[in-house]
Protein backbone atom coordinates (compact mmCIF):
# COMPACT_ATOMS: atom_id res chain seq x y z
CA UNK A 1 0.00 0.00 0.00
CA UNK A 2 0.96 3.62 -0.59
CA UNK A 3 -0.15 6.22 1.93
CA UNK A 4 -1.37 9.47 0.39
CA UNK A 5 -1.68 12.67 2.47
CA UNK A 6 -3.10 16.09 1.64
CA UNK A 7 -2.50 19.44 3.31
CA UNK A 8 -3.96 22.91 3.72
CA UNK A 9 -6.30 24.24 0.99
CA UNK A 10 -5.92 20.97 -0.91
CA UNK A 11 -7.13 18.92 2.04
CA UNK A 12 -10.12 21.22 2.46
CA UNK A 13 -11.02 21.18 -1.25
CA UNK A 14 -10.92 17.38 -1.29
CA UNK A 15 -12.39 17.12 2.20
CA UNK A 16 -9.81 14.37 2.73
CA UNK A 17 -6.62 14.29 4.80
CA UNK A 18 -5.37 10.83 3.98
CA UNK A 19 -6.09 7.73 1.89
CA UNK A 20 -4.35 4.58 0.70
CA UNK A 21 -3.73 3.14 -2.73
CA UNK A 22 -2.60 -0.31 -3.77
CA UNK A 23 1.05 -0.05 -4.81
CA UNK A 24 0.33 -1.97 -8.02
CA UNK A 25 -1.97 0.79 -9.28
CA UNK A 26 0.74 3.41 -9.77
CA UNK A 27 4.38 3.50 -10.86
CA UNK A 28 5.00 7.23 -10.49
CA UNK A 29 3.69 10.28 -8.65
CA UNK A 30 1.99 11.36 -11.90
CA UNK A 31 0.21 8.00 -12.04
CA UNK A 32 -1.18 8.65 -8.57
CA UNK A 33 -2.31 12.13 -9.57
CA UNK A 34 -4.08 10.63 -12.59
CA UNK A 35 -5.80 7.99 -10.47
CA UNK A 36 -6.98 10.62 -7.97
CA UNK A 37 -8.16 12.94 -10.77
CA UNK A 38 -10.30 10.14 -12.15
CA UNK A 39 -12.24 9.96 -8.86
CA UNK A 40 -14.69 12.75 -9.74
CA UNK A 41 -14.94 16.25 -11.14
CA UNK A 42 -13.95 17.97 -7.87
CA UNK A 43 -10.79 15.91 -7.60
CA UNK A 44 -10.03 16.37 -11.30
CA UNK A 45 -10.31 20.13 -10.94
CA UNK A 46 -8.17 20.17 -7.82
CA UNK A 47 -5.40 18.11 -9.38
CA UNK A 48 -5.39 20.17 -12.58
CA UNK A 49 -3.79 22.99 -10.56
CA UNK A 50 -0.28 23.29 -11.99
CA UNK A 51 1.15 24.83 -8.83
CA UNK A 52 0.45 21.70 -6.75
CA UNK A 53 3.56 20.28 -5.07
CA UNK A 54 4.38 16.68 -4.23
CA UNK A 55 6.69 14.95 -1.78
CA UNK A 56 7.62 11.30 -1.30
CA UNK A 57 8.82 10.25 2.14
CA UNK A 58 9.27 13.92 3.12
CA UNK A 59 11.37 14.87 0.10
CA UNK A 60 10.08 17.15 -2.63
CA UNK A 61 9.82 15.27 -5.93
CA UNK A 62 8.47 15.83 -9.42
CA UNK A 63 5.81 13.80 -11.20
CA UNK A 64 8.19 11.27 -12.73
CA UNK A 65 9.39 10.10 -9.29
CA UNK A 66 8.89 6.33 -8.84
CA UNK A 67 6.75 5.12 -5.96
CA UNK A 68 6.67 1.79 -4.16
CA UNK A 69 4.72 0.07 -1.40
CA UNK A 70 5.31 1.68 1.98
CA UNK A 71 5.92 5.15 0.56
CA UNK A 72 4.20 8.21 1.95
CA UNK A 73 3.17 10.49 -0.90
CA UNK A 74 2.05 14.03 -0.07
CA UNK A 75 0.26 16.63 -2.18
CA UNK A 76 -0.01 20.24 -1.11
CA UNK A 77 -0.23 23.85 -2.35
CA UNK A 78 2.80 26.15 -2.48
CA UNK A 79 4.02 26.78 1.06
CA UNK A 80 3.34 30.02 2.92
CA UNK A 81 5.21 29.75 6.20
CA UNK A 82 7.62 32.11 7.89
Amino acid at each position, binding site marked *: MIKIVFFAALREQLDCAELSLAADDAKTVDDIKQLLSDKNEQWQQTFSNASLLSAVNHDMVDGSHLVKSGDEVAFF*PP*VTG*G
Partner: protein
Amino acid sequence: MLKQEISIQADDFSLADEVVLLEKDNVTDGAIVTFTGRVRNNNNGNSVTTLTLEHYPGMTEKLLAKIIIQAKERWNIGRVKVIHRIGKLSIGDQIVFVGVTSKHRQDAFAANEFIMDYLKVKAPFWKKEQITDDGQTSENWLDAKNCDTDKADLWS
Protein backbone atom coordinates in the same frame (compact mmCIF):
# COMPACT_ATOMS: atom_id res chain seq x y z
CA MET B 1 27.54 19.22 21.91
CA LEU B 2 24.03 17.97 21.38
CA LYS B 3 21.51 20.68 20.90
CA GLN B 4 18.03 21.10 19.57
CA GLU B 5 18.38 23.39 16.56
CA ILE B 6 14.79 23.10 15.33
CA SER B 7 11.54 23.47 17.17
CA ILE B 8 8.03 23.35 15.71
CA GLN B 9 5.71 24.34 18.50
CA ALA B 10 2.28 25.74 19.33
CA ASP B 11 3.64 27.58 22.37
CA ASP B 12 5.12 31.02 22.23
CA PHE B 13 8.88 31.46 22.57
CA SER B 14 11.10 33.96 24.33
CA LEU B 15 13.63 35.74 22.15
CA ALA B 16 15.68 36.55 25.26
CA ASP B 17 15.83 32.90 26.36
CA GLU B 18 16.84 31.78 22.87
CA VAL B 19 19.62 34.35 22.70
CA VAL B 20 20.89 33.26 26.13
CA LEU B 21 21.14 29.68 24.83
CA LEU B 22 22.90 30.77 21.64
CA GLU B 23 25.44 32.77 23.64
CA LYS B 24 25.93 30.46 26.61
CA ASP B 25 29.53 29.22 26.96
CA ASN B 26 30.15 30.66 23.53
CA VAL B 27 33.00 33.16 23.73
CA THR B 28 34.28 32.61 20.20
CA ASP B 29 31.26 33.96 18.32
CA GLY B 30 31.21 37.74 18.65
CA ALA B 31 28.22 38.23 16.34
CA ILE B 32 24.63 37.19 16.77
CA VAL B 33 21.84 37.98 14.33
CA THR B 34 18.21 37.24 15.11
CA PHE B 35 15.14 37.38 12.92
CA THR B 36 11.68 37.40 14.44
CA GLY B 37 8.52 37.29 12.34
CA ARG B 38 5.20 38.33 13.85
CA VAL B 39 1.56 38.39 12.69
CA ARG B 40 0.82 41.72 11.03
CA ASN B 41 -2.59 43.38 11.18
CA ASN B 42 -3.06 43.59 7.47
CA ASN B 43 -2.25 41.73 4.31
CA ASN B 44 -3.23 42.99 0.87
CA GLY B 45 -5.44 45.64 2.42
CA ASN B 46 -7.64 43.26 4.40
CA SER B 47 -7.85 43.34 8.15
CA VAL B 48 -6.42 40.14 9.61
CA THR B 49 -7.81 39.11 12.99
CA THR B 50 -6.16 35.71 13.48
CA LEU B 51 -3.98 33.29 11.58
CA THR B 52 -3.95 29.49 11.63
CA LEU B 53 -0.71 27.75 10.82
CA GLU B 54 -0.62 24.17 9.59
CA HIS B 55 2.44 22.11 8.74
CA TYR B 56 3.50 18.68 7.51
CA PRO B 57 4.97 16.98 10.58
CA GLY B 58 8.16 15.11 9.82
CA MET B 59 8.81 16.79 6.50
CA THR B 60 9.07 20.21 8.13
CA GLU B 61 11.81 19.12 10.52
CA LYS B 62 13.66 17.28 7.74
CA LEU B 63 13.58 20.32 5.46
CA LEU B 64 14.66 22.78 8.12
CA ALA B 65 17.54 20.47 9.05
CA LYS B 66 18.63 20.44 5.40
CA ILE B 67 18.49 24.23 5.21
CA ILE B 68 20.63 24.53 8.33
CA ILE B 69 23.19 22.07 6.95
CA GLN B 70 23.37 24.08 3.72
CA ALA B 71 23.84 27.30 5.67
CA LYS B 72 26.68 25.74 7.67
CA GLU B 73 28.37 24.53 4.49
CA ARG B 74 28.20 27.99 2.95
CA TRP B 75 29.09 30.22 5.86
CA ASN B 76 31.36 30.09 8.87
CA ILE B 77 28.67 30.07 11.52
CA GLY B 78 28.49 28.73 15.05
CA ARG B 79 25.10 28.01 16.56
CA VAL B 80 21.73 28.05 14.86
CA LYS B 81 18.21 27.97 16.21
CA VAL B 82 15.01 27.87 14.17
CA ILE B 83 11.59 28.03 15.84
CA HIS B 84 8.30 28.00 13.92
CA ARG B 85 4.95 28.13 15.60
CA ILE B 86 1.84 26.29 14.46
CA GLY B 87 -1.84 26.58 15.37
CA LYS B 88 -3.91 29.70 15.95
CA LEU B 89 -2.09 33.01 16.32
CA SER B 90 -3.26 36.59 16.90
CA ILE B 91 -2.01 39.95 15.68
CA GLY B 92 1.40 40.75 17.12
CA ASP B 93 2.10 37.11 18.02
CA GLN B 94 5.51 35.74 17.17
CA ILE B 95 5.48 33.20 14.30
CA VAL B 96 9.08 32.44 13.52
CA PHE B 97 12.53 32.90 15.02
CA VAL B 98 15.93 32.37 13.44
CA GLY B 99 19.09 32.97 15.45
CA VAL B 100 22.63 32.56 14.15
CA THR B 101 25.97 33.17 15.86
CA SER B 102 29.29 33.58 14.11
CA LYS B 103 32.79 34.94 14.49
CA HIS B 104 31.96 37.33 11.65
CA ARG B 105 28.88 39.48 11.35
CA GLN B 106 28.64 39.06 7.56
CA ASP B 107 28.28 35.30 7.94
CA ALA B 108 25.67 35.66 10.68
CA PHE B 109 23.61 38.08 8.58
CA ALA B 110 23.89 36.07 5.36
CA ALA B 111 23.16 32.68 6.93
CA ASN B 112 20.17 34.04 8.84
CA GLU B 113 18.63 35.63 5.75
CA PHE B 114 19.38 32.49 3.70
CA ILE B 115 17.60 30.30 6.25
CA MET B 116 14.56 32.61 6.29
CA ASP B 117 14.41 32.82 2.48
CA TYR B 118 14.54 29.05 2.11
CA LEU B 119 12.18 28.40 4.97
CA LYS B 120 9.66 30.68 3.24
CA VAL B 121 9.71 28.76 -0.04
CA LYS B 122 10.61 25.22 1.02
CA ALA B 123 9.32 24.40 4.48
CA PRO B 124 5.82 22.88 4.39
CA PHE B 125 3.88 25.43 6.42
CA TRP B 126 0.58 26.95 5.33
CA LYS B 127 -1.19 30.02 6.67
CA LYS B 128 -4.92 30.52 6.78
CA GLU B 129 -6.14 34.01 7.58
CA GLN B 130 -9.29 34.90 9.42
CA ILE B 131 -10.32 38.26 8.02
CA THR B 132 -12.87 40.83 9.09
CA ASP B 133 -14.01 43.03 6.22
CA ASP B 134 -16.98 45.40 6.67
CA GLY B 135 -18.08 43.40 9.72
CA GLN B 136 -18.00 40.13 7.70
CA THR B 137 -15.64 37.42 8.87
CA SER B 138 -14.14 35.06 6.34
CA GLU B 139 -11.25 32.65 6.10
CA ASN B 140 -8.81 32.04 3.36
CA TRP B 141 -5.54 30.29 2.71
CA LEU B 142 -2.72 32.61 1.81
CA ASP B 143 -1.32 32.42 -1.70
CA ALA B 144 2.40 31.94 -2.06
CA LYS B 145 4.21 35.08 -3.15
CA ASN B 146 6.36 34.90 -6.25
CA CYS B 147 8.78 37.39 -4.76
CA ASP B 148 9.69 34.86 -2.06
CA THR B 149 10.56 32.24 -4.66
CA ASP B 150 12.58 34.78 -6.63
CA LYS B 151 14.46 35.79 -3.51
CA ALA B 152 15.41 32.22 -2.61
CA ASP B 153 16.64 31.74 -6.19
CA LEU B 154 19.15 34.52 -5.62
CA TRP B 155 21.16 32.24 -3.32
CA SER B 156 21.61 29.43 -5.84
